[in-house]
């Protein structure tokens, strides 16, 4: 009996020792979470006595998990935060303002792409640090485009439309490009509006969606559906891309490795290109930031981890691990990126990329945009009428 008590005591004391080290809790999502241990182990080697616990959350459950976490104030020290989620969760007042940390650190605004930094600024404060970015570019089948007389990617709106016409003329169930037509596709539609020179708000905060530029973008987008150049209720993106039925789509860097994995048979037959030009070639920039929750008791440690992840060599290592695009500009000069033709396009596109307005109402506005553009796609409204309705919707949302 006494022996058992002794063993128990020993176990309790030993576990007491292991609890003495500081624990940093991180919430991460998707593929990032699965691979983050590579960086975490390195961080723990550099910082003895620190234990990092990563909780992996699937993207599909992340939103609800954050929401319930905030409502119940059960939050980790820091978390990966999608750029479009910064505003709604930021408005709930749970993110730590980081200006004071930045003052004494090598981490600052100039390290990052402008479009990416916009996503951490809210109401004059800084509520996050960019981790990685994603930017949408055009993916296209070089061989299929060549068959219809394009030895290069469509460069302008006119070329894209012309190529689309020729591609769809190949026969029944043949289309040119894949675009979203239902659900919430505000982030997919906005690049077209930006390319045309349109905007949602001007500097004074007035709604500007009835400007001719914005209306033109709606019409251009919807025309691909009217003339059956883009499929409605289509099949699988990868299969259609591999078969050539839908040889153009717009997406982000994660698609590069996914195409190689899912459809290795078309290796070498596809490429990426910049967005088509109207007035500009603007694309959508997203990605993820790091945020520290103001409930955290380890804010200094959390900041240390953010600094660690921002260091160029670690940004590069992370790029090599999951090939997500580094948010730190200088990393793009490493040969791993600058010698890679695909990455070069992404790097070029990042210089002309915007993020949607960083306001908590964005989700609702994106919904309204989708609803009105959808009404034009299904020919229930003219582009002009839809834009007028959209103006009323947005004014009601932000009022």
């Amino acid at each position, binding site marked *: 009996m006494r022996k058992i008590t002794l063993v128990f005591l020993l176990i309790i004391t030993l576990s007491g020792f292991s609890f003495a080290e500081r624990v940093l809790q991180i919430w991460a999502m998707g593929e990032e979470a699965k691979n983050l241990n590579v960086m975490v182990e390195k961080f723990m080697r550099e910082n003895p006595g620190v234990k990092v616990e990563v909780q992996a959350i699937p993207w599909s459950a992340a939103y609800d998990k954050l929401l319930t976490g905030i*409502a119940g104030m059960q939050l980790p020290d820091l978390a990966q935060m999608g750029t479009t989620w910064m505003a709604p969760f930021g*408005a*709930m007042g749970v993110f730590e303002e980081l200006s004071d940390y930045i003052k004494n650190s090598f981490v600052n605004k100039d390290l990052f792409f402008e479009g990416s930094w916009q996503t951490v600024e809210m109401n004059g404060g800084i509520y996050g640090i960019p981790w990685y970015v994603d930017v949408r570019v055009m993916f296209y089948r070089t061989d299929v485009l060549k068959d219809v007389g394009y030895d290069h990617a469509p460069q302008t709106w006119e070329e894209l439309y012309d190529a689309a016409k020729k591609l769809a003329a190949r026969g029944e169930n043949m289309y040119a490009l894949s675009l979203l037509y*239902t*659900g919430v596709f505000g982030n997919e539609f906005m690049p077209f509006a930006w390319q045309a020179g349109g905007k949602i708000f001007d500097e004074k905060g007035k709604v500007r969606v009835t400007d001719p530029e914005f209306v033109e973008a709606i019409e251009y987008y919807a025309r691909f559906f009217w003339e059956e150049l883009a499929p409605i209720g*289509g099949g699988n993106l990868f299969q259609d891309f591999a078969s050539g039925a839908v040889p153009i789509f717009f997406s982000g860097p994660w698609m590069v490795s996914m195409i190689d994995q899912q459809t290795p048979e078309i290796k070498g037959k596809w490429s990426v290109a910049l967005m088509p030009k109207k007035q500009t070639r603007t694309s959508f920039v997203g990605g993820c930031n790091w945020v520290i929750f103001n409930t955290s008791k380890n804010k200094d440690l959390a900041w240390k981890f953010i600094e660690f992840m921002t260091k160029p060599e670690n940004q590069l290592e992370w790029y090599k691990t999951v090939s997500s695009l580094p948010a730190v500009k200088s990393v793009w000069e490493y040969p791993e990126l600058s010698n890679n033709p695909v990455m070069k396009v992404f790097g070029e596109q990042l210089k002309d990329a915007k993020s949607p307005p960083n306001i*908590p109402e964005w*989700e609702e506005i994106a919904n309204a945009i989708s609803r009105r553009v*959808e009404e034009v796609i299904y020919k229930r409204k003219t582009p002009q009428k839809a834009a007028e309705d959209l103006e009323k919707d947005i004014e009601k949302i932000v009022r």
Partner: protein
Amino acid sequence: MVRTKFQWIVVFIGPALILLMLFLIIPIFASLYLSFTDFNVFAMTDWSRARFVGFRNFVELFKDDLFWKALFNTFYCLIVAMPTTVVLSLLAAVLLNRERTLFKNFFKVSFFLPFVTNTVAIAVVWSWLLNPTYGLLNWFLSLFGIKGPNWLGDPRWAMPSIIMLVVWKAVGYNTILFLAGLQNIPDFLYEAAKLDGATPWQRFWYITLPMLKPTTVFVTTMMIIGYLQLFEEPYMLTQGGPLNSTLSIVLYLYRQGFRFFKLGYASSIAVILFLMIASLTLLRLKLAGRD
């Protein structure tokens, strides 16, 4: 004596009562209160920022065309799906109840499987079945020379597709209920009717149906409650589109509450839905009690 009894009542009912209060009763009253406030994203962590606004949410709701659209869609689903489910599951139950039917257990399990399968998995499979170009359903139709519609991409066909799915999912459960009802009907009624020369159809109409009434009342009541809360199927398959043709009330509520964080507004939708379900259920029970 009375005292000890009371103590035991507390011991046995207490835990269940506490859970019920915590997760059902209190939230119901909380959402009733919320529906009179403008609780939004800024109030999530600081509740004091939510202001009392009286009936403003309800006034706005009645002016909201998407709410009416969602209301219409939900009743569309209920009115088509309820009779279809009743007829199909009664048919299946009668067939399963015949003595001559082979592989009874196999069929019972097959009918019941959709009910216990995860809706997410079902939605993935159905989105493939309904695919306009490669889908099994349109391939089947093409055998008869029919060009199938673009099921989920056409605003006219999206809701019928959703209804197909929910009916398919609900039939198994209701079949089991009807089967239990059928097995409770005493054999001597049928024997007596047979001796009196009643045809099979007459036996079904004058014995089976009236004797099944308690089951029918239960089944239809549960369906009113269930179908009015249509959510998972459109959420997974169409997200309410195209053109909001599959937007249900609960989906709209979810969007307002958990995507836009307008919990006050969402609560007012919940209150309306609650009133509708309660009054329709009471109406159904009253109709059943009258005759």
